[in-house]
């Protein structure tokens, strides 16, 4: 088989795949379009809707600002200063990334809430009531604490890519250290800061867990609540959210492009600034972040776990949800890994407008918050699949297969990125060598290309697995009745304020997510 014929086969595979990936969003948009225009306008301009929009924007902007305030100094300290324990601080400051937002929010509520642990400790001192954590402040705190590592990692990468010669040039041209920091260092970091902050904005806009637990009515929660009342209006809100998310995604892509343009790796490591008497303050700053974002949540969960075990809870009940989570995430990861291959091959090896369009549409999941994907499938389920499943003698359209399908729509992009990076590293001359040595194109790929891009594919599959493990809204909406996973177990325990029951699954999720750090942290420092 020649490369041309093989590409045709891949095209034949990826076209229907793309159609499947586009189906839910397409259907959603179709349904939103079916709402009467007057009704749509009336609904979208209603004060309640505008408040949802306002709250979403407020949350995105304040969380973005707060994460910058936390992450930029922390990144600078760990890369460019003689902060003691830099390596340990880097790992610790990155770790909050592994705490799912709803787990973190739950821990915050149980800690700082009106009947939380802190209040219990303060009660003897005469503190009757703590201010309520629910609403804006709780959502803001939770999202800031568990998403700032995106900015931290991005700025760190930017700092490490800076050419120290530029700062030295500024110094030889007579500029002071402060002027150099402002005119040279920060200016060059700007693309990295932008890229990280936009990722945080994207995270905040599409997060469901934290805002739901903090009962702050932004887009995702409003859509989830509308779901049972009026599907058409929920679809309308979803389309607005998709548009906002897509806008942010375009901004992220542009920022990334600029970042790669500005910074490049240099063999020389930069000069470190001596902190001197500021050392203690720097340690305290990093310590406070780690305390709030990592030690406290994990500590609270451990506390509840021990507390529960002492009061007769057992760990046995967690086994079945763990198994279900593992199965669902494993299947989603395998399906995504396989589905990524044709797109990646076509985009990299047969570049052209069509293959590029196909690959880009496979990235659609990035622009679809979990709630929106869930809603789209509920739509499809209620209107199309429902009749089908009844015809096949089933009463519920929800199934493990549908759940995996939805996960794949949402998380396929995470498999595409690393697989593409892996293939880009394989010199096409290697395949051509294999051809001239008598192998057919598929055999050349199997014996040469696939083994060489394996680590990229594996990284992508692992990433899909880990994110699927902690996914909440899609699982809530689409898991078949009785298919209780770790995430849904935490959710139901939290809505009943039954913290002891949520603790074990939450700790398991945190531990499993911690594995993803292997792929996130750069090995050398």
């Amino acid at each position, binding site marked *: 088989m*020649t490369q041309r014929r093989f590409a045709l086969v891949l095209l034949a595979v990826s076209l229907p795949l793309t159609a499947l990936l586009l189906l839910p969003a397409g259907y959603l948009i179709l349904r939103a379009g079916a709402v009467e225009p007057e009704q749509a306008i009336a609904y979208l301009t209603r004060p309640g809707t505008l408040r949802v929009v306002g709250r979403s924007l407020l949350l995105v902007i304040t969380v973005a600002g707060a994460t910058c305030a936390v992450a930029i100094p922390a990144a600078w300290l760990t890369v460019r200063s003689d902060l003691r324990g830099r390596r340990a601080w880097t790992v610790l400051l990155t770790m909050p990334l592994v705490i799912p937002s709803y787990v973190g929010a739950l821990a915050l509520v149980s800690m700082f809430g009106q009947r939380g642990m802190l209040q219990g400790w303060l009660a003897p001192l005469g503190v009757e009531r703590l201010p309520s954590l629910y609403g804006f402040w709780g959502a803001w705190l939770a999202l800031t604490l568990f998403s700032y590592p995106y900015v931290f990692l991005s700025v760190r990468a930017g700092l490490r890519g800076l050419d120290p010669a530029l700062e030295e040039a500024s110094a030889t041209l007579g500029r002071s250290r402060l002027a150099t920091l402002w005119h040279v260092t920060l200016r060059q970091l700007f693309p990295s800061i932008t890229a990280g902050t936009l990722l945080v904005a994207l995270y905040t806009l599409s997060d469901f867990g934290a805002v739901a637990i903090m009962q702050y009515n932004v887009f995702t929660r409003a859509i989830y609540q509308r779901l049972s009342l009026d599907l058409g209006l929920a679809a309308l809100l979803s389309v607005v959210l998709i548009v906002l998310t897509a806008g942010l995604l375009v901004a992220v892509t542009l920022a990334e492009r600029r970042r790669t343009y500005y910074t490049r790796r240099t063999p020389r490591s930069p000069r470190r600034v001596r902190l001197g008497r500021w050392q203690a303050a720097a340690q305290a700053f990093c310590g406070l972040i780690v305390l709030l974002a990592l030690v406290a949540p994990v500590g609270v969960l451990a506390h509840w776990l021990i507390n529960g075990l002492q009061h007769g809870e057992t760990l046995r009940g967690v086994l079945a949800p763990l198994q279900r989570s593992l199965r669902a995430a494993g299947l989603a990861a395998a399906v995504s890994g396989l589905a990524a291959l044709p797109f990646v091959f076509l985009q990299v090896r047969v570049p052209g407008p069509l293959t590029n369009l196909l690959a880009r549409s496979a990235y659609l999941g990035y622009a679809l918050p979990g709630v929106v994907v869930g809603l789209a499938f509920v739509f499809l389920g209620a209107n199309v699949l429902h009749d089908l499943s009844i015809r096949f003698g089933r009463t519920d359209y929800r199934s493990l297969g549908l759940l995996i399908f939805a996960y794949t729509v949402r998380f396929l992009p995470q498999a595409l990125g690393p697989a593409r990076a892996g293939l880009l590293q394989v010199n096409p*001359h*290697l395949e*051509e*060598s294999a051809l*001239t*040595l008598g192998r057919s*194109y598929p055999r050349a790929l199997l014996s040469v290309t696939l083994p060489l891009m394996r680590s990229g594919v594996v990284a992508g599959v692992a990433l899909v697995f880990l994110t699927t493990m902690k996914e909440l809204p899609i699982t809530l909406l689409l898991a078949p009745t009785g298919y209780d996973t770790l995430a849904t177990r935490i959710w139901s325990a939290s809505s009943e304020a039954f913290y002891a029951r949520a603790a074990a699954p939450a700790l398991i999720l945190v531990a499993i997510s911690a594995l993803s750090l292997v792929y996130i942290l750069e090995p050398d420092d």
Partner: protein
Amino acid sequence: MTDPTPHSISHPLPDVAPDSDAVACCDLRKSFGSVRAVASLSFALRRGELLALLGPSGCGKTTALRLIAGLERPDDGVIRLGGRLVSGPSVFVPANRRRVGLVFQDYALFPHMTVEKNIAYGLAGRDDRRQRVAEMLTLVGLEGLGGRYPHALSGGQQQRVALARALAPQPDIVLLDEPFSNLDVALRRQVREEVQRILREAGVSAILVTHDQEEAMSLADRVGLMFDGTLHQLGTPRDLYERPASQRAALFMGAANLVPGQAHGAAARTALGEVRLIEPCQGAVEVVLRPENLALNGAEDGAAAVVVRQTYTGARQDVWVTLRDAPLTLHITCQAGVPWGVGQPVRVHADGVALAFPAAPDSD
């Protein structure tokens, strides 16, 4: 192609002819979008011959190689390998069935395989695989390194592995794409001789692509000079150097002075006086004078000039002089013995017979 008649009827093509050329290309064309990489390329490679395709970068020589290997489909034209039609209207034999060995510029060794595995890759399904790998390792002088991975080899060793891998399946021809450009200059000459020896011992026909004129001349039996996607001139290295087909070819095949003059039969009148011509000619011409065809002396005969630049390379020296009576600077190579100094007045004269081309109408 507007001719509706099926090709096989209008031109009966015998499948394999005896004594046929190792490679025969006829009117090959290939464009990438609006870029014409190869435009009407025709040539033949004789059996056992080493041919160099020489040309500036972007002249289409690598594309020509990829067309022969079957890695690109020509837009038009015919390719035969040992008389077998492999590419033509309605025929395209893919790369894996062409029995053509290809050595890439970057060697393209499989990084996840040992040297032995790399060499054995093209021997799938053959019983004599082990023996053949051992033979190849001996041929390229890498006995004992079969268990190494490519990254643990020097550039020259990687090169020889790539060659061994291409030769192992006993291909009918071997194609080499800029095989020495990734080696540092000190190593290049040595590896060049080694590759030439290996190709001769293997008795294989080979095409080598290069932009290095010296490399092409020292290695190849014949050199094909390519400009703008077509073969400009094909001949022995000596032909190309001494009898270039054009001014452009003359300039590409080594340093040359183009001196304007008026030809009148067997000689031309130039600023250097009368220069005898190889072929009689009439009218305005440009006379090709290689730096070694010019001689300098202190006072006696020749055109008066002054030295403007001088470089010394040990065995010889290069001198640039500007003529006193004409706006012309000439490059001259001479013995290192007498040092010529900048500003020194000299006299220049041309030795032997020279080639002349009609002056280009808009030449400046």
